C-alpha cells in the first residue's frame, strides 16, 4: 500500500457508520419496548377476564329453544298438512 502524507478524508463514512449504528440500536430498543408493553396490556386484560367472570367464560351459552316454540312448530305443521290435503281434495272434485 502507498504511504500517504495526509490521511484521506473519509470522515463522512465514519459519521454515517455511527449514525446508522445508533438508528438501528434505537429501532431495536423501541421494538423491544413496544412488544413488552403490548404483552403487558394483553396480560392485564386476560387476567382481569379470568378474575372477573370465570363462570361466564366457562358456562356454555344456552342454545336449546323454549318448549313453547316446539309446540308452536307442531301446531303450524299440522295446519299446513290440513290445508294441503283440502286443496288436493278440491282439485279432485273439479276434475270429476
Amino acid at each position, binding site marked *: *500500500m502507498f*504511504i*500517504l502524507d495526509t*490521511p*484521506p*478524508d*473519509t*470522515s463522512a*463514512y*465514519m459519521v*454515517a*457508520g*455511527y449514525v*446508522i*449504528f445508533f438508528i*438501528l*440500536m434505537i429501532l*431495536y430498543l423501541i421494538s*423491544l419496548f413496544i*412488544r*413488552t408493553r403490548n*404483552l*403487558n396490556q*394483553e*396480560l*392485564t386484560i*386476560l*387476567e382481569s*377476564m*379470568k378474575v372477573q367472570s370465570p363462570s361466564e*367464560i366457562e358456562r356454555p351459552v344456552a342454545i336449546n329453544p323454549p318448549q313453547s316454540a316446539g309446540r308452536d312448530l307442531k301446531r303450524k305443521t299440522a295446519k299446513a298438512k290440513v290445508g294441503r290435503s283440502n286443496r288436493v281434495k278440491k282439485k279432485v272434485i273439479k276434475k270429476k
Partner: protein
Amino acid sequence: MQTKSITFKILDIISVLLLATAVYLALVYAPEELQMGQVQRVFYFHVATAWTALLGFVAAGVAGIVYLVTKDSKWDIVEVSAVEISLVFFFITIVLGSIWARPIWNTWWTWDPRLTTAAVTELIYIAYFMLREGIEDPDRRARFGAVYTVVGSFSAPITFFAIRLFRTIHPVVIGAGDPSALGTFDMTSKMLVAFMFALFTFSVIFVDLFWNRIRMGNLASKVEQLKLSIM
C-alpha cells in the same frame, strides 16, 4: 404487569454508560489511522458487534441442544432471544462493514469469502424466524427451532475462520492474515484499548438485551398459556 428489578435497572444504566465511554474511546481517544483516515474508527464497533453476534449464534445452538435434551420451554426462550439479538448485531456488523469498505475497497459489497459467509449466516437466521412463524404448535415450533439453530450454529465458526482459511481481501487484524488484504493495519496501544473496551461494552450490552428479551419471552409464554386456559 412485570416491573424491573434494581439489578436490571443498574445493568441498563451501566450499559448506557459503557456505550458512551466506548464511543468516546473510538471517536476521540483512539488516534486516526494514517492510511484509511477517520473511517477506520468504524472498526471498533464493527468487530465488537460481529464478535458478540457470532458468540450469540453459538449460544443459541447450545440452548437448542439443551432444549432437545430437557424439553424445557425456558431453553426455547433463551434460544430465540440469543438469535434475535445476534441477528440485530450481525446486521449492524454487515452495514458497518459495507460503509467501511466503500472508501477502502471502492465498493459497498463484494462476494469475498468472509462477506459471503456473513451474508449466508444472516440469511440462515432470518429464515429461522420465518420457520418459527410458520408452525403453530408451540412444542413442534420449539423442537424444529432447536434443531435448526444447532445446525445453523455451524455457520458462525465458518464465518469467523473464513478469512483465515481462504484467500480474501478482508483484513485479519488480530493474528496472521493475508498481507495483500486491503485495510490491514497495526493497532497502536491506544487503538487496542479502544478495541478491547468496545468488545467488553458490547458483551455487557448483549447480556443486558438478552436479559430483557428473555423477560419478554417469559411474558409472551405466560400470555399464551392464559389465552389457552381461557379458551
